């Protein structure tokens, strides 16, 4: 256990991570699945990414820059197998008994056809946890639908709800993949906890569309309660005004301001140097402010335009009003708060180049903040570890399997 932990974090003497000693066989591709197993690796699991030439092909793709998807492989091991070959399937099966969790995001049915479905895995390891994730889930009329992130958010209602009142729906991309990846991690954690208590494994079926629909779940009650199906509303809130992004000094610089309740409103009027707004009948109460929102927005924008976004934040936060710039990637990389918390994690590519990756969504004692000591695994970098050390295959056999392109 301590060995797995040290190999995973490269740190000794730090707090133990929760999933130290848990081994994950990662059969995922693209963005969502690899982010799920990345989160498990951040929790201390030993993740073995089983891959074919697929990653190399994807990374060479036009839009994906190598560092972009590769930063989802921090702390993982990589072994290569050509799973189209029956002997490779036999090898994959021999890895399963040494694992606790298997994660995959092929289309439903594909894993079964490969002979690696839940029934087969369970015979190899009775308490295995298999997490299968797909666009629409393993059951239902759309189970065979293919999809990418923007399609999940379209089907789930999120694209329709995001946008200006007078504009089209908004397409959302990478963040949606990472959201559904997180939705795979949650039930895996629940299943691990159950197994820890009872020794029982299980099969988990995750639908990416359902995962996104849950993040706008309350909106699904609106047609039932009011007979209306809601649409886009820009930055508007049902109750608060001001509640918008306002222009600041500079090009394309903005600050978000949300004022909730009378106390915040009075503080806002004081901090902006406009105490007269507080007594203006057009803004006297929440109803009036909401009713005169366009006028109010124009007055607020006139005040913000004269200032930088950080200045607005400082002035308003000091008065207890929620104001935060609409940060871009450079702001966040330079931001004192983000830096002090060490959110971005430095790492090295296979070639030794220095890069940074985003950290996980939580801080637990021992959560890594530096990954330079262990480079992103190259394709098949851990073949010797997996095939020789874990499986105990002889050097000659590994060489033959490599020559036969089974270890690809």
């Amino acid at each position: 256990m301590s060995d797995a932990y040290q190999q995973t974090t490269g740190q000794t003497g730090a707090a133990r991570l929760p999933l130290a000693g848990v081994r994950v066989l990662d059969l995922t591709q693209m963005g969502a699945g690899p982010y799920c197993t990345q989160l498990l690796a951040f929790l201390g699991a030993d993740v073995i990414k089983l891959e074919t030439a697929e990653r190399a092909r994807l990374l060479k793709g036009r839009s994906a820059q190598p560092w972009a998807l590769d930063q989802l492989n921090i702390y993982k091991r990589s072994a290569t197998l050509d799973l189209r070959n029956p002997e490779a399937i036999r090898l994959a099966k021999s890895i399963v008994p040494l694992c606790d969790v298997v994660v995959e995001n092929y289309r439903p049915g594909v894993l079964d056809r490969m002979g690696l479905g839940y029934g087969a895995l369970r015979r190899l390891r009775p308490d295995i946890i298999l997490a299968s994730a797909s666009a629409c889930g393993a059951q239902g009329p759309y189970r065979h639908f293919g999809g990418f992130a923007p399609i999940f958010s379209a089907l789930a209602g999120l694209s329709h709800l995001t946008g200006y009142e007078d504009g089209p729906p908004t397409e959302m991309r990478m963040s949606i993949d990472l959201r559904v990846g997180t939705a795979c991690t949650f039930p895996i954690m629940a299943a691990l906890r159950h197994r820890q208590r009872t020794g029982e494994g299980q099969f988990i079926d995750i639908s990416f569309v359902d995962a996104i629909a849950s993040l706008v779940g309350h909106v699904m009650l609106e047609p039932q309660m009011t007979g209306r199906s809601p649409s886009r509303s820009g930055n508007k809130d049902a109750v608060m005004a001001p509640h918008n992004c306002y222009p600041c000094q500079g090009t394309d610089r903005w600050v978000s301001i949300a004022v909730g309740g009378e106390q915040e409103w009075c503080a806002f009027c004081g901090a902006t140097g406009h105490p007269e707004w507080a007594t203006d009948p057009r803004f006297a109460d929440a109803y009036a402010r909401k009713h005169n929102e366009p006028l109010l927005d124009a007055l607020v924008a006139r005040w913000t335009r004269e200032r930088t976004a950080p200045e607005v934040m400082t002035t308003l936060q000091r008065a207890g009003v929620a104001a935060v710039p609409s940060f871009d990637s450079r702001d966040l990389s330079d931001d004192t708060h983000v830096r002090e918390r060490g959110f971005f994690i430095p790492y090295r590519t296979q070639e030794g180049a220095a890069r940074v990756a985003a950290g996980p969504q939580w801080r637990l004692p021992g959560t890594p903040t530096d990954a330079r000591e262990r480079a992103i695994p190259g394709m098949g970098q851990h073949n010797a570890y997996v095939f020789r050390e874990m499986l105990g295959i002889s050097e000659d056999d590994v060489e033959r399997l490599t020559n036969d392109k089974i270890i690809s």
Partner: protein
Amino acid sequence: MPEKALEGVRVLELCEMVAGPYCGRLLADMGADVVKIERPGVGDPARRYGPFPGDVPHAEKSGLFLYVNLNKRGVTLDVETPTGRRLLTELVRRADVVLEDRPPREAQRLGLDHPTLSAVNKQVIVSSVTPFGQTGPYADFKAHALNTFHAGGEGYFLPGGDWLDRPPLHGGGGFLGDYDSGLAAGVATIAALYDRAISGHGQHVDISRQEVLMSLNGLDLTKWQNSGKVETRADRVPRLGSTLRCKDGYVEINVNFNHHWAALVRALDSPAWATDERYAYYKGRLENDREVRASFEAWSMARTKREVMETLQVNGCPAGAVNDPADVLASPQLQARGYFVEMGHPDAGRYKYPSAPWKLSATPASYERAAPRLGEHNTDVFCRELGLTPAELTDLRRADIV
């Protein structure tokens, strides 16, 4: 009856609105006993958010509150009073997890911080869900859902296209980043429970809503540090795939690979425009994107979004209707999966609620009770569990502590 993954886990939730409460809901769906503590009299501000049945606001009928608090029990307690704090201490002694969302300085003042709580119960896990986390210069800054969405960098990316004269956007539904934070807190809280079974001690889970969004947008946010490119909304131009118009709305199609393009051409019965050799490869389609999309829309505008989606998918081209909430409710796919569970509530009535998006074969999510009415389980928790007499509870009510 199937077992529950979080059987026997007792959670105290001192959270409001969406982020913390959604974590509580996710844990409750997996079988944890979640007791939500609300302020006497007013309760969670989510109760004032709609939708409301027939548009009539009512503290027990808020769609937002009912959705994020399903499956919990609820009590009222004023933790600002010494007596309220004493009762809270008793509850903490019996809890496995305390979920809290106060600014760190306030949490400390109220004794809701990790050092204080762990002095009461060494094994307790404290999960704090705050706008900027427990440390750093912004730790006590205030942020509503709109602010954290922009704090985390996602707002600045939306909406893609030529909209630079208009403000960057909040995520749809109004609480996207808050739900994300609840999910993140759920993952980390179960991880802490898993760890406790081995190590024997609890720990402090620090969730910064800003960092949750930064992590989810990490692949785009790190472009600046890794390649010197600050991505803006203007870089996210709609292209094939993109959102395209059809007869009754929009459809999203993604033609990322050549075999998807071939599938699209097949779905449209190989019209002359689509077999133009300039479009055979990605680069050519990108260069002639406007033209390709116009030709496609000439076809799609004669069809409904569902027809377009099904025709393309049958042929192997990824596509999805841009559903509105009513479409999602009526989706044959979600119905077949049993995604919506119908639950009755004594004041609000019967509605279909989204259930967990995952199906676990041995420990499925279970739905046993609607969201609690304000203080519904006061007798349950304070008398039956903590052993107060009915007369004591009455006195606490008179003192506005319960």
